[in-house]
């Protein structure tokens, strides 16, 4: 089972990212569950969402305490919320930022957790280009798919069209394509 935790702020589409991931996994023929850390959080407040992907039916209803995958949609949370709590030792971490790990002051963390694979992706900037707004959620999901292959790009694309029919879907599809290109050009596939 892959357990994914997504951190962001209210209004950034964090919950949608989790749903999109779960839907993509379902399209890949897997069992998948997505749920928010429920709250009446308003725009800007820290928000967490969860996703589980498995080959067997998923029964657990507990929050994801030990994520294998951590998607951080808002890097301002890094030193505000304990986003790394319970992280699996060989976890995959993707942070939405134009800066690298060092500039984000995470070098110590990386040294202390040698098995953790950490990447940064300028998902907001890439989204801004196509959507005119810095919605990072699609880019983060696409980045995760491109970097790990744990969900397929095809399934991510399909989920985008399912979830956002029409023009918005097309634009979001373009964001995903841009991210795939960016990853191919700038980040080694792990």
């Amino acid at each position, binding site marked *: 089972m892959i357990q994914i*935790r997504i951190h962001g702020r209210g209004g950034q589409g964090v919950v949608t990212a989790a749903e999109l991931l779960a839907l993509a996994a379902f399209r890949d023929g897997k069992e998948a569950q997505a*749920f928010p850390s429920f709250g009446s959080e308003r725009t800007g407040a820290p928000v967490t969402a969860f996703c589980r992907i498995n080959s067997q039916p998923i029964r657990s209803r507990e929050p994801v305490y030990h994520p294998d995958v951590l998607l951080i949609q808002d890097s301002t949370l890094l030193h505000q919320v304990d986003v790394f709590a319970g992280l699996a030792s060989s976890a995959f971490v993707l942070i939405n930022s134009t800066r690298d790990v060092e500039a984000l002051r995470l070098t110590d963390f990386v040294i202390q957790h040698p098995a953790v694979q950490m990447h940064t992706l300028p998902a907001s900037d890439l989204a801004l280009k196509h959507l005119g707004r810095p919605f990072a959620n699609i880019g983060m999901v696409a980045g995760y798919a491109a970097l790990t292959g744990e969900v397929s790009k095809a399934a991510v694309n399909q989920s985008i069209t399912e979830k956002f029919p029409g023009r918005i879907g097309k634009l979001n599809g373009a964001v995903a394509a841009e991210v795939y290109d960016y990853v191919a050009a700038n980040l080694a596939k792990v």
Partner: protein
Amino acid sequence: MKHHIEGSQAVAHTVALCRPEVMACYPISPQTHIVETLSRKVKAGEIGNCQFLNVESEFGALSVLIGASAMGARTYTATTSQGLLFMAEAVYNAAGLGLPIVMTIANRALGAPINIWNDHSDSMSMRDAGWIQLFAQDNQEAADLHIQAFRLAEELSCPVMVCMDGYILTHAYEVVDLPTQEQVDAYVPAFEPVQVLDPQDPVSIGAMVGPEAFAEVRFLAHHKHVRALEAIPRLSQAFQDIFQRRSGGLMDTYHTDNAETLLLALGSVNGTIKDAVDELRKEGWPVGSIALCAFRPFPSHALRHVVQDAKRIIVFEKDLAVGMGGIVSSDVKMALQGLPIIVDTVIAGLGGRPIPKASVIDTVKQACLEGLEEPHFLDLNWDEINRELTRQQAQRRSGPTAENLLREVGPPGTKPV
């Protein structure tokens, strides 16, 4: 067909297939997605001539259904928490009149302090109202139970609540096999009311009943529930025949054979509990679990039968009878009277507090090795409780308890989960 879908959407979709004729709804989190979807379906003409009334309160919502049901219409609403309390008078009335209304409860805590997250305090507060109460373990069952609920309600002429955990189920996306219209039509026959307001055959409904007959009327309501104990498993079986999957029934048992310790709970936490059972079994603990689907009527007899060889039952319940302890565990104890079985009460998951698998496992081990105090509260923050108790002792005007605690605990969202 299998869909990856939000729980609320799955329920709304399924309710629509049951061909309700009148729905009256009042919004409250986390029920909103269900009624929003249904209102759209009605507007789009997807539910025949169904009427969707936007009403002024939950009390109004259920009252509308009381009138519509007495007029012979199939009726549905959904609510939770404060909304259920606000309609309380009508909840008892609908059951007393024997009207087969189906209502989803998106289970949520009761205030004060106001809290929008999941526990079972709301439906528990109405447990004696005369409604049948069925609890769903996951969204597949939540959807399926509605189909069974309409048939059950109309067969017995008794209202049914389908209880699904707020947010944990209503807002969770997972795989649900959505039924087809043909399947639902094959299972839910047309509504044939046992009583109806008909100018051709005028009757009075809702007359005052005095001491000369009230007890008998009440007994007959109880008798209806006794009949439901037979009908619920039968209709679950009939459901399986058409839909090819198991849903509902009085209870769902997991590794109960040869189990010395049984965990018992209502609703979605049973998923986590089953995972915990697997892990404990791997370590050699002879444990199993029971997911109660029917809480009203309470399946005392069936439960006795299932647990007769066990030594201990640990009831995990998302409610609290303040000043007493467990609500579910009290019923379990009553059902098991005379059997040499220890019944523990674990109060857990109040107001949306997660119930981690690790805590479940620890509690089971603690119960088996040392025993549990009664009732046992899962994962309480004793530091904060003691701090507040000290504060209250130190000064008369210690201030509002909830706000004092919040100040100590810090703003929400800053701790990861």
